[in-house]
């Protein structure tokens, strides 16, 4: 039963696609106004994923199966894999997607595009589930692009708002820059290994058949794709703007689907990328760790100065993704992956919580107007606080911690061992995370509601929005406790057993860590504990009693004011990119002008003058020899022939088609009766004569008929 479940794991992704198709075409006529079917299918997908997980947990062998897709020189498969990592991921994605879809019933209530929204959510989750299942670069790339497309459609779901339309275009175009990298990387992988199947690729890489330079370029290309999708530093600009989409979409993008895809892909391709580790100038992991660590700190600073509740969360996502990349980059593959899992739960929780706040405040997202919501919505408040603590990584080392504590601690410890400067950056980020999240909680929930109008109109949040919050908060608290068993289990059940490198690397780390690990881990853990405590304390001190006093303090000091502007404008990176694009456009205009005035004048007109001179010579030949002598002989013959053929030229399309059809009949006749060719030809000629007569009649009718 469980094995059958795992063998047909493709159904996990196919079911929501079916729901998408049905809801897309039947829309409001399906039960629950189009919401019920996506919920049911996602529920079945979730149970199916749990079945696969149970299959792996009961000691099943990893499964890799596929459908044949095309034969063109090589054979190409759409193959999927069920192994420890993918099942863990499947359960997380389908659970978060299920909760988000249930929650959307409340959030999107009364929206004109209600049923369409659920269809989109279904396909969005399906493409991410497919991406997780893929064990083949074709399927991976198809799903990768589908995820991008669906996030485009969902971010721009309220496309009548110009900001939303701009945001979705920006998201699509920005990720496209990264996708150029992954496209090149896939092409190079195929060139180097003649295969797109992950296991074959990993085998060949492990056997050393691919040169280090090539591996370096491939790894950077793959990472470029992840930088776009997972919103790392140079390409992070789309994620905050994506907040224009409905909040459930933000929750899905930030937790389970879009941004997780990049991290997941890097994790999946770890045998290729880790092959470059320690290769001097061809070491791609240094880049991954560097960009990850920088992003973690960089976007955490921006989050301090944002006033939109969703934008704070968006920058915190970028920062957490930076941690994941840092973990992957320093060789702590499991830590990065585990942080992806735990982050999914508490970030979905935070986003759905912020969505509840936004609904309660009638689509107001500005935290400066909120405040005092703790009394109005206690469930949302407490779950939001749990999410905040989990995100901050709150916990006492060696004793107890929320989910974010465990995963972040592992990343920090690994970074501490491998790259001390990056670890310091990450620790600064670990101080900033609780700092800005405390600010967010204080401004939203503490004190009194600052906007008078808002205070009178706070509405209750429906039950189908609060229940997912409670479920997610359970996971946000407890997901970290399975870290140790999951780590051991993943190392055993990674689907591609041929790859020794991962395990060797892990073993090497294990020995190395054995001696120094505990000391380092404890040191880092206590430093991080101090950072978190300091962050929360400072945050409470500054904003615990409302933002007025702090705002006044910032107003008084010129330096603080400048810093605030710099952070609020996100280091002017959007403006910089704008200038870059403008510059490019101006350059193109200049090229066009050059083309018009210089190239056209010299080459086109000069050439024209030359041809004119030649023409006058040719013209003389034409007039004297051709026109006088040759012209008069031809027409006589042509005229006679034309008079006969004119009868066939009826000008009626139907006549021509009829002739074609009769020709087809003659062709079939000849091929059926090859012995009786004369009879067939005779029949055809008779038919042709009849048709010619008919055509002549038609011509006359055509002449008489009025226009």
């Amino acid at each position, binding site marked *: 039963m469980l094995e059958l479940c795992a*063998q047909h794991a493709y159904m996990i992704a196919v079911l929501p696609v079916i729901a998408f198709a049905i809801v897309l075409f039947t829309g409001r006529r399906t039960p629950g106004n189009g919401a019920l079917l996506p919920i049911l299918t996602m529920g079945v997908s979730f149970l199916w994923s749990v079945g696969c997980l149970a299959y792996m947990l009961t000691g099943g062998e990893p499964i*890799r*199966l*596929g*459908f*044949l897709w*095309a*034969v*063109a020189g090589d*054979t190409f*498969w759409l193959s999927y894999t069920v192994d420890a990592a993918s099942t863990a991921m499947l359960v997380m994605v389908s659970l978060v997607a299920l909760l988000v879809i249930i929650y959307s019933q409340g959030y999107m209530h009364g929206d004109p595009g209600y049923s369409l929204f659920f269809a989109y959510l279904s396909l969005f989750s399906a493409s991410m589930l497919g991406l997780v299942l893929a064990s083949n670069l074709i399927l991976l790339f198809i799903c990768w692009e589908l995820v991008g497309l669906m996030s485009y459609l969902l971010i721009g779901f309220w496309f009548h708002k110009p900001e939303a339309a701009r945001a979705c275009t920006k998201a699509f175009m920005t990720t496209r820059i990264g996708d150029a990298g992954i496209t090149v990387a896939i092409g190079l992988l195929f060139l180097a290994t003649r295969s797109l199947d992950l296991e074959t690729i990993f085998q060949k890489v492990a056997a050393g058949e691919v040169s280090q330079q090539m591996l370096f370029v491939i790894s950077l290309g793959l990472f470029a794709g992840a930088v776009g999708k997972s919103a790392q530093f140079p390409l992070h600009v789309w994620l905050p703007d994506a907040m224009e989409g409905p909040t459930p979409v933000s929750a899905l993008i930030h937790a389970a689907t879009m941004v997780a895809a990049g991290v997941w892909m890097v994790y999946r391709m770890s045998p290729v990328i880790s092959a470059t580790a320690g290769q001097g100038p061809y070491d791609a992991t240094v880049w991954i760790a560097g960009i990850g660590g920088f992003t973690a700190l960089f976007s955490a600073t921006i989050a301090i100065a944002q006033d939109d509740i969703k934008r704070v969360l968006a920058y915190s996502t970028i920062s957490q993704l930076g941690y994941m990349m840092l973990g992957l980059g320093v060789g702590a593959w499991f830590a990065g992956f585990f942080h992806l899992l735990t982050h999914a739960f508490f970030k979905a929780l935070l986003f759905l919580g912020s969505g509840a706040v936004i609904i309660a405040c009638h689509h107001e997202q500005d935290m400066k107007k909120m405040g005092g919501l703790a009394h109005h919505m206690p469930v949302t408040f407490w779950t939001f606080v749990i999410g905040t603590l989990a995100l901050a990584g709150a916990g006492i080392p060696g004793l107890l911690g929320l989910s974010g504590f465990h995963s972040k601690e592992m990343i920090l410890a690994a970074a501490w061992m491998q790259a001390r400067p990056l670890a310091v950056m990450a620790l600064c980020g670990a101080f900033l995370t609780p700092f800005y999240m405390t600010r967010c909680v204080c401004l939203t929930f503490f004190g009194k509601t600052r906007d008078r109008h808002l205070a009178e109109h706070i509405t209750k949040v429906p039950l189908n929005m609060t229940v997912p919050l409670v479920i997610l908060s359970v996971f946000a608290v407890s997901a970290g406790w399975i870290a140790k068993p999951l780590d051991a289990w993943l190392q055993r059940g990674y689907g591609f057993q041929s790859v020794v490198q991962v395990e060797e690397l892990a073993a090497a780390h294990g020995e190395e860590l054995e001696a120094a690990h505990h000391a380092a881990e404890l040191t880092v853990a206590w430093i991080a504990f101090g950072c978190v405590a300091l962050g929360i304390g400072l945050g409470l001190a500054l904003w615990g009693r409302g933002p007025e006093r702090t705002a006044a303090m910032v107003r008084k000091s010129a330096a603080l004011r400048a810093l605030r502007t710099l952070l609020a404008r996100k280091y002017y990176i959007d403006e910089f990119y704008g200038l870059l694009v403008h510059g490019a456009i101006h350059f193109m205009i200049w090229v066009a002008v050059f083309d018009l005035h210089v190239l056209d004048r010299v080459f086109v007109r000069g050439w024209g003058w030359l041809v004119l001179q030649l023409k006058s010579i040719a013209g003389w030949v034409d007039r004297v020899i051709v026109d006088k002598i040759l012209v008069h002989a031809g027409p006589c013959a042509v005229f006679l022939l*034309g008079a006969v*053929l*004119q*009868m*066939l*030229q*009826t*000008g*009626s*399309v*139907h006549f021509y*088609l*009829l002739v074609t*059809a009769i020709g087809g009949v003659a062709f079939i006749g000849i091929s059926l009766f090859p012995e009786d060719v004369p009879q067939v030809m005779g029949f055809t000629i008779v038919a042709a004569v009849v048709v010619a007569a008919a055509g002549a009649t038609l*011509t006359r009718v*055509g002449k008489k*008929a009025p*226009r």
Partner: protein
Amino acid sequence: MALRFSDIFPPIVPLSHYLLFSAILFAIGLYGVLARRNAIGMLLSIELMLNAVNVNLAAFSRSGLPDTGAVPAQIVGQLFVIFLITVAVAEAAVGLAIIVAIFKLRKTVLADELTLLRG
């Protein structure tokens, strides 16, 4: 390793049914091309004929050739169908563009009024 599509959905409908269906579809398309006056209707009928061919190709690739265990027999016909669909799309695009252009010029899309090529 390989889970074939036909393992999950074995071919139940015999080949001749597909062929009969495609022949009927083709004949309907041919009739439509010859009998419709509206150029758009004719274009639609041509699509019908093309799709009749597609059905034939797919049906033959599914069950027409013996499955020797080798890969190509099963898939070549379906690949052709994909190419044909692409061609059909291009054809429809060009055809519709021509019809639009003709309509702008002549204010009609009735094929028997468009006798500009008459000799």
